[in-house]
């Protein structure tokens, strides 16, 4: 059992969403040679009210699958997702519709996130109409995301990537959501406007009390934007901590590798702290820790058993056998 003071109860005043043992699987191959892919493997975490939770990992680590499971585009294979104390992992019909309206999404590609044939006005007005939201108007939403109202009768192809992403955010805000799942919202934008989109999202968090699951592969932007950061590798949640703490004292060997790979003022001259470049094994037959083939601290049990989850402090948890790393924090950097 996971010893988790944050997740122990199903209803916590502070938590908007509590995810327990979430597993998403895909059946691949033909029916007689079925292989099962596990992009999200028994992941537990919670999202507090108005919190920005970063989710960092490389391609194929299961970040986007978590996003799609939280918005219920995918139905989880097992596990629970408590939204204000109600398990929403397997709801259907009108319940699902109501839940989805509370958990909106901002997409990676602003070019495919807007219907090319509808004006900005139409795209933002539809959700307002749908829930009968009279609190906001298209004008006020566009203003809130920093767009001129002159843009409202334009079509998506007449807007820049940054403007489109703002329209996407306005459209999400129209439903008055409690959580916005932002799946790499800035990775396809020009570098010069990335920070402004992140500040906009931060601003909306303060003004409208919306929580974020901010998914990225970039530790630097996760640190800039989020209160806490989760690190995923091969479908496993490997570490979670407050942003500053995670950067200062990373415990998991993979987090350390990620940090070492981040460009910084200090020149990284030595080789990266890893033993190989293999990609994680996501098949359901995989055993042990997915990072074991690349890990400097690998030991026998790493390839046999799933690493235990340890809360080093009340807010800093890690899934690793090499507990000597936790006692001499940061020394491996």
């Amino acid at each position, binding site marked *: 059992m996971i010893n988790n003071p944050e997740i122990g109860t199903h209803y916590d005043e502070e938590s908007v969403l509590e995810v327990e043992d979430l597993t998403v699987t895909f059946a691949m191959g033909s029916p007689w040679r079925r292989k099962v892919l596990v992009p999200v493997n028994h992941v537990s975490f919670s999202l507090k009210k108005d919190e920005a939770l970063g989710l960092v990992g490389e391609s194929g680590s299961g970040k986007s699958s978590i996003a799609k499971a939280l918005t219920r585009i995918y139905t989880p294979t097992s596990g629970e997702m408590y939204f204000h104390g109600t398990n929403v992992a397997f709801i259907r019909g009108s319940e699902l519709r109501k839940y989805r309206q509370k958990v909106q999404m901002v*997409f990676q590609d602003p070019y495919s996130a807007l*219907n090319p044939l509808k004006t900005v006005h139409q795209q933002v007005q539809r959700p307002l109409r749908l829930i009968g939201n009279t609190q906001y108007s298209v004008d006020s939403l566009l203003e809130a995301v920093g767009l001129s109202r002159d843009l409202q009768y334009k079509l998506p*192809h007449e807007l820049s990537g940054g403007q489109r992403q703002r329209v996407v955010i306005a459209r999400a805000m129209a439903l008055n959501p409690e959580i916005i799942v932002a799946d790499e919202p800035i990775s396809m934008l020009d570098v010069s406007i990335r920070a402004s989109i992140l500040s906009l999202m931060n601003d909306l968090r303060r003004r409208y009390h919306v929580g974020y699951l901010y998914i990225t592969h970039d530790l630097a932007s996760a640190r800039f934007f989020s209160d806490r950061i989760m690190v995923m590798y091969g479908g496993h949640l490997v570490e979670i901590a407050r942003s500053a703490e995670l950067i200062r004292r990373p415990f998991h060997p993979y987090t350390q590798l990620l940090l070492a790979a981040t460009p910084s003022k200090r020149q990284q001259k030595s080789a990266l702290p890893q033993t190989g470049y293999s990609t994680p094994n996501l098949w359901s037959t995989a055993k042990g820790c997915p990072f074991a083939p690349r890990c400097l601290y690998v030991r026998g049990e790493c390839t046999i058993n799933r690493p235990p989850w340890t809360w080093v402090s009340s807010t800093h948890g890690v899934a690793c056998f090499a507990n000597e790393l936790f006692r001499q924090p940061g020394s491996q950097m």
Partner: protein
Amino acid sequence: MIRPVREKFPLSLRSLRKVDEVKRPSSIWSRMLGNTKFRWGLTIFMLFVLMAILAPVISPYSPTLTSFTPLDPPSLKHLLGTTANGQDVLSQVIWGTRISLGVGVGAGALSIVISIAIGLLAGYKGGLADKILTTVTNIVLVIPGLPLIIVVAAYVRATGPLTIALVIGLTGWAWGARVLRSQSLSLASRDYVTAAKLQGNSDAYIIRQEILPNMISLIVANFVYSVLSAILAEAALEFLGFGNVSDVSWGTMLYWANNGQALLSGAWWWFVPPGLAIAMVGASLALMNYGVDEIANPKLSVHRKRRANKRS
């Protein structure tokens, strides 16, 4: 050929001027009318439509009147001559437009409606629905079209234009369904469709508002194609005598011309006009199809543009 530098300057000025103009997106219809191939195709097709509508006004005689000299070659009295039964060929061609176009458009419309329903449902819903519908589509696809139509038409007793349109429409939807399925499969995975789902829109709304409008050019292309194949299938069926041979259409004209040994007696004016009419309508529809294709798939017209640039 090296383009003179001078030419670049006015080009950039022109593009600067464009910034001030309010750029209205050209709608799909205006883009289609701007396409030369489509315009030509539409013009020819509309001429035939006019001919069908105005048949009572413009045809010189009744198409079923048999009181003329048989096998009279074209003359001022009979611009396209007469048949072996003593009917006026021109009047028959004009009146025949009605059935030929009517059956073609009707069958095309029926098959595109079935294609849209099956293709969109399979592509959008996915899963088991997709598997079942794709299997059905593939089965219909591998059945050879014309032989099936012949078998069905031979078994149905009351063969009139309506039956033939129904038979063609109900057998000709498979290819369109397949094309529309793959397109809606691709559209259904776009982020804006996901966003529409997250907003809590109904499936009907998403299909109607988010997916269908984005594949209208493909639908038009498929409609034009199915009208074309329906007209050809209808002519083929009637030529083979599976229609009601007392109806006047291009297909039955060819049937009677064949029965009346028009080829042997050298009565070219009997079989060339209906054949030419079928070919012209076919060409007009094919032109429209190419035009729509170029708009839906801009890569096709790149080559042409490049050639036009070279010329200037």
